């Protein structure tokens, strides 16, 4: 077990190559796919920046196992046929590992192809619970290293159930496509299953993207809910918030935005104090999140390299995916003494656990899906940077299904 260390830890980065076997001399070929254009670039751009920074750091330390450099190529997810692009990367360009996908639709289309082609693939951001519940029910080569929508939606339902007893009426505003529908469905089912004593008075689905929320807000003002669950993001969230502020929606309604902390950076002047925000998993640069040196190092390195803070969860998801991959390879090598082939890599990823800037991440044995805690807080406008106060953590077991159940089966049987 000598050298079986967590490559993400400060003292062992790139080290620990004492497994003995030969390490390939040619660089590892990695493709990273994310939206670097279009509306989802709010996540994809910092994501790609983080990936680039992490690869450079690993290479500066000698590479994987201190010996093998990583050659990373960036691919824009904003293409008309992502499956075609994926097939080309997997078959013609022969990447050792393909890491990517922000869009639910893209991840759902690509995952079965990854299995068909036996191509090691890490889904680094997509939230849809359908990925392993229905698209690929018996995955081998596909893993997801970030929290699924279950973390956000069930987390919000539990937050409401546990911590907000005065809420009597609830409404939803979500984008009218897979992600928005999936989130609202999980949230609503979780509330029902928990037996939370609230009435759902409205659920609005808005076109994506959408710049005019005025009538949606008027409709919500008419039913005047105590609480709103929303998975809006990007320009839609900024528009909704701006127009809702103007129309007094938040005067007596508490909204809960499950993946919205990136607007703290993108539109800070539009964020009022005291709304509930979640960062799509426990990823946030400031406030009570600064608990370990990995977090501090990541934020500081990102800031010094890009002159900006890793506000969007995409940057944190990139960290987990890249170090998760490197750790799984190093772990396999250190334990077996052999540089892992694809099958050995799969075995190493199954049941893996390691420290990240956002806490301990793990893929439970029998699953290919990482679990993370849910994290919430109230927007805090008092400091130099917009932050979260009165933060709440919800344990990962409370917001993710056990390995033998689909998300829906688990939720319906709380």
């Amino acid at each position, binding site marked *: 077990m000598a050298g079986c260390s967590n490559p993400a830890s400060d003292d062992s980065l790139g080290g620990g190559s004492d497994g003995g076997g030969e390490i390939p001399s040619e660089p590892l070929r990695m493709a990273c796919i994310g939206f*670097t*254009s*279009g*509306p989802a*670039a*709010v996540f994809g*751009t910092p994501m790609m920046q983080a990936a680039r920074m992490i690869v450079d750091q690993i290479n500066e330390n000698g590479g994987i196992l201190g010996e093998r450099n990583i050659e990373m190529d960036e691919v824009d997810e904003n293409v008309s046929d992502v499956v075609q692009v994926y097939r080309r990367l997997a078959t013609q360009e022969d990447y050792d590992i393909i890491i990517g996908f922000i869009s639910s639709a893209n991840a759902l289309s690509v995952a079965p192809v990854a299995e068909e082609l036996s191509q090691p693939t890490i889904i680094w951001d997509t939230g849809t619970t359908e990925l392993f519940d229905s698209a690929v029910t018996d995955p081998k080569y596909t893993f997801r290293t970030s929290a699924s929508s279950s973390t956000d939606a069930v987390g919000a339902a539990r937050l409401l159930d546990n911590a907000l007893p005065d809420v009597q009426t609830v409404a939803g505003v979500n984008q*009218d496509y897979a992600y928005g529908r999936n989130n609202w469905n999980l949230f609503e089912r979780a509330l029902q299953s928990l037996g939370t004593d609230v009435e759902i008075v409205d659920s*609005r*689905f*808005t*076109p994506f*993207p959408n*710049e*005019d929320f*005025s*009538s*949606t807000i*008027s*409709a919500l*003002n*008419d039913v005047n809910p105590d609480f709103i669950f929303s998975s809006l993001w*990007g*320009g839609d969230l*900024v*528009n909704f918030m*701006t*127009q809702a*502020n*103007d*129309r*007094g*929606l938040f*005067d007596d309604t508490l909204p809960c935005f499950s993946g919205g902390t990136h*607007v703290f950076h*993108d*539109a800070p*002047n*539009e964020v009022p104090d005291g709304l509930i925000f979640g960062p799509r998993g426990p990823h946030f640069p400031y406030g009570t999140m600064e608990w370990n040196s990995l977090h501090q190092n990541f934020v500081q390195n990102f800031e010094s390299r890009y002159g900006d803070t890793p506000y969007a969860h995409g940057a944190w998801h990139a960290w987990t995916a890249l170090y998760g991959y490197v750790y799984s390879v190093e772990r396999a090598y250190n334990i077996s003494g052999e540089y892992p082939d694809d099958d050995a890599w799969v075995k190493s990823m199954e049941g893996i656990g390691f420290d990240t800037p956002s806490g301990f991440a793990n893929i439970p044995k029998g699953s290919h899906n990482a679990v993370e805690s849910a994290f919430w807080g109230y927007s805090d406008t008092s400091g130099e940077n917009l932050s979260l106060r009165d933060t709440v953590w919800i344990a990962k077991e409370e917001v993710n299904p056990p390995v033998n159940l689909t998300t829906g089966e688990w939720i319906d049987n709380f």
Partner: protein
Amino acid sequence: MAQQLPILLNSLFRASTLFLLGTGLSIIYGMLNFMNLAHAAFLALGAYVSASLIQGASNAIGGTLGTAAMFVVFLVILFVIVPGVISVVGLGMEQTIFKPLYGLEDDYQLLATFGVILMMEDSMKFIWGGLPVTSSAPSNMLGGFNLVGNTYPYWPIFAVVVTMVIATTLYYFFEETRLGKITLAMAEDEEVVSVTGIDTRSVHIKVYVIGVALAALGGALYLPNASITTGLSLEFVILAFAVLVIGGLGSLKGAIVASLLIGFMQSFGSYYVPQLSLAIVFLLMAAVMLIKPTGLFGDIKA
């Protein structure tokens, strides 16, 4: 009925933005016979430039002026500087890119100007980045009032009033001024006008610049209510053409009526049947085309 008041105001605000966008497109087509898909990009450009100037002015002199004086500065930016700057940009594009397209068939114009809108979109992304840009300072300054139990902002109402003044001025322009009458005459038969010795090229440019300035103003008035992101031009180009198709090519009256119809359909539609809010404009367009293929006021030029 009182509950419908906010939706009614939302509709009118929506209609204002569409009118400022659609009218420009319509009069340019009516007079120049030039189908410019890139017209909606002037709205997005107006919004982006407004955001930058408002943020710049707030940072530079925000603390030194009182609220009223600062609001006047914002109004000068939105009503004078932004339409002025975008008109200059538009004029530059007219001289270099659009002028060679005037003699071509509509399909070639559509194809070429679609390329232009994509290039303008990318240029805006290059300058302002992919993240949402906002500047709600002018709207925040005006604040809001209580309307059927909830706050409603003054800004949309202000924008509607401004647009009504502009619509009236445009009507006066076309009916009463020499340039307006020449414009109408040119729309009917340019050759006849040109043989009278009138410099039709100069009239072209003036009317084109008015159209661009209106679209820029549409962006400037829309901005304090929303965020500006890439793709805005492409979203609005569809609506601009809906105004054109429903109202009828080159008709001012048509643009007013079509903007109001679309504004009302979109606002009430997303209130009552949100699932149809995307389809509703197209349903309206299809209905109008079935009944009157030239648009509601298609046979009346400007």
